[in-house]
């Protein structure tokens, strides 16, 4: 039977209650950064006994070591009964969802936007206490939506957090404003960040249909040009769908013509059936066989023009032979699984596997390479 493992990052408390908000997990080796503002702490006393700094009471939280180590930051839900890792020393990729609001309404959005505030202030406090040198993902929603707060955040992390770099997943539209980009240059944030920006087509017709926002193509491309002026590295994300699959070579040509190969990396991505992509699955999912030729042409065009690129979420058996070397094992092990047919496949170890969220859809049909 195919069973997909779930990532353990959340802990439900039984009778114990904590105060809603961020907590720093302290132990003998990890204590609060002295220069940073205050944050709640859970200090590990003995085994599963922790001292809660908010009420000064010792509490029993037996499973905490499953989700958190000393030095981690946890977030407690509003009713105080649920704990979730916010920043983890163990994780290879810490990502902060700073807001759930977004101007675009992409038909395949995995995290459908909703009206929401932001958590820049909290994120900054957490980051100040998180000692690990690493790259932090900033995602949403749209991280640049609350521009002033975003800018303030960028200024603070650039000044105070030398051991952190940032990957910002944005639709790039707000970066079409040169004044805003100038503000961002001034913060020094570009020296420690790169941007992941989706581009869905070589013209506004295709791109705007995907984002369901007229004018988004122009703004995004203008944003990309601005980043190009600033020499900021960009990961261009192309979600391959039924709607753009016939135009991938043109998208590749557009990218090589309009942008600079030194700063741009192109990521072709198979969509994950979650969020709206799940709801719209039948109308947007492109069968791998129907994409192979066009994807090959696009990759060849990029390669000839010296652009770097990669293929994400594509199982090896969904790709033509010549493209397999560019596929990444991109699906995290808590999100992927290998159906029974994959058992004998010789490419299994190079393969990203299948989204566990795709069980029961056509996306998960393997063609083992024997």
């Amino acid at each position, binding site marked *: 039977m195919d069973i997909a493992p779930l990532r353990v990052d959340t802990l439900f408390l039984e009778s114990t209650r904590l105060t809603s908000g961020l907590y720093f997990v302290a132990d003998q080796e990890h204590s609060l950064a002295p220069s940073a503002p205050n944050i709640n702490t859970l200090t590990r006393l003995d085994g599963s006994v922790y001292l809660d700094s908010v009420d000064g009471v010792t509490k029993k939280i037996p499973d905490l070591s499953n989700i958190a180590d000393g030095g981690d930051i946890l977030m407690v839900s509003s009713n105080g009964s649920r704990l979730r890792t916010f920043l983890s020393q163990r994780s290879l990729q810490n990502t902060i969802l700073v807001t759930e609001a977004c101007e675009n309404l992409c038909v395949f959005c995995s995290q459908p936007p909703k009206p929401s505030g932001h958590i820049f202030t909290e994120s900054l406090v957490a980051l100040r206490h998180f000692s690990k040198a690493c790259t932090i993902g900033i995602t949403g929603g749209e991280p640049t939506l609350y521009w002033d707060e975003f800018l303030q955040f960028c200024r603070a992390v650039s000044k105070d957090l030398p051991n952190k770099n940032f990957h910002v997943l944005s639709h790039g539209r707000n970066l079409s404003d040169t004044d805003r980009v100038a503000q961002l240059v001034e913060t020094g944030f570009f020296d420690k960040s790169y941007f992941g920006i989706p581009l869905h087509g070589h013209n506004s017709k295709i791109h705007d249909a995907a984002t369901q926002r007229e*004018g988004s193509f*122009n703004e995004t*491309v203008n944003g990309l040009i601005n980043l190009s002026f600033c020499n900021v590295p960009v990961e261009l994300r192309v979600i391959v769908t039924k709607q753009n699959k016939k135009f991938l070579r*043109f*998208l590749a040509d557009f990218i*090589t*013509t309009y942008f600079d190969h*030194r700063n741009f990396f192109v990521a072709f991505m198979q969509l994950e059936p979650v969020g709206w992509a799940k709801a719209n699955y039948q109308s947007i999912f492109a069968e791998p066989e129907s994409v192979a030729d066009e994807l090959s042409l696009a990759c060849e065009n990029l390669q000839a023009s010296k652009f770097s690129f990669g293929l994400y979420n594509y199982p090896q058996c969904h790709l033509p032979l010549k493209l397999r070397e560019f596929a990444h094992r991109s699906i995290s092990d808590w999100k992927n699984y290998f159906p029974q047919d994959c058992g004998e496949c010789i490419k299994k170890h190079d393969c990203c596997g299948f989204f566990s969220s795709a069980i029961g859809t056509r996306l998960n049909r393997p063609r083992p390479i024997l």
Partner: protein
Amino acid sequence: MKLHPFFFRKNPENGKIFISNQLGGWSFLRDETDLHTLIAAPSELSDLDRLQAKGFISGSDSGDLYERAAESKMTHRFSRLGEKPSLIMVVPTLRCDHNCRYCQVSRAPLSSSAHDIQLSPQAIADFIAAVAAPKFKLEIQGGEALLALDFIYALVSSLNKLRGEDFEVVLCTALGPSIDDRFIGWCHEEGIRLSVSFDGFVDLHSKFRIHSTKGDSATRFLEQKRKLEDAGLSDNISYVSTLTKEALERGPKDYIDSCLSLGIHRIYSRELSEYGFASSTKSNLGYRIEDYIKFMGSYLDELIVGFNSGEDFFDYTFSLYLTKLLAPDASGHMDALSPAGYATAGFLLNYDGRIFGSDEARMLYESTKNERLTIGKLRNKEFELQENGFHQRLLTESFLETSSICSTCAYLPFCGLDPIATLNQQGDLTGFKKELSQCQLTIGMLDLISDRLDSGALTREMVKSWI
């Protein structure tokens, strides 16, 4: 639908209209009728997606995207001028044990010790370390590099101390001088690349490259080549060939077969130089550029046939133009940049301490001794700048974007020039670039390659394995 500025040219190879733009996008239109349609009513053309992707047209809602992208591309290109040079050429001696009839550098005889470098390797290393880009190539030119090995060992060792692994070393040699175990060990240890002169055909090599002491030059070359291969240095060697009239007459098939029979799978062929002794022997050995282009056309077709039948042979002379067309911004070939790479992408330190902006500048100096060509002199540890406005002038003239005729050429986005060429061929800084041999060569080669790419004869598979 919005139409953006574009260049056009009728390609004589296929009669189609080559169109290009300042973003480096290019495409073909079937004929003049399509060209007229593009101008008058672009939306009636059948290939709109391609034209849109390549920056020729865009939606009427696209604002100033094209202009901003062009500005960004140009900014990137010109910002190179603010970077340090990454090609550092050093001539430790002008002496050479060969006496080639088409020598471009006006070599000096073996016995002439006045043509050896007098500066200390340490002083030169200090100078290079101070001015070179973070990653650079040290190219040892000549004369014959192997006649100055002690100097080169010391220079590389001093540079290693100053710049670690940040540079690669290329020695230009015709492999005349004896090779010992120390040299072989050093090549292995330092990963030295040897750029070896070999003219493709054994008998033509013997005929035009006369060795002054060691008998037949081709026999010597083959003997030395074998020695390097036996020492495990095959991968360190690349071959540079100068094509004479006789080579052209024999045709590309024989040329390829001759190279393959000697185990040579990659070569860089070039036309006869316009400098040095070559400029005076040209009437005997030379040919018209048209004949050279014709040869290159059938040569390219042979390479394509060869590739399709599994033969492993390629000539790097094509990769220069292929890169220009497919990745114009990735091409860093110093002699083909606009503005020129002269004194900015690279420079040359001569055996006499003179600094030149390019190899061509020193070639011209060696045959004219015109001091204006000198940028400065290195004496002991002092660098003395001989600035006279001349070099800025040369650079100014090398902005093809502002040069008459060039500024409307369809190949402008893929072109570049060593500014010494106009001086050498036309005695003038501005010159009439259309009549330069390099202009005719570039146009001819780009005609060929764009046609073969368009027809599909030159496949992406070939491009992938060749460049």
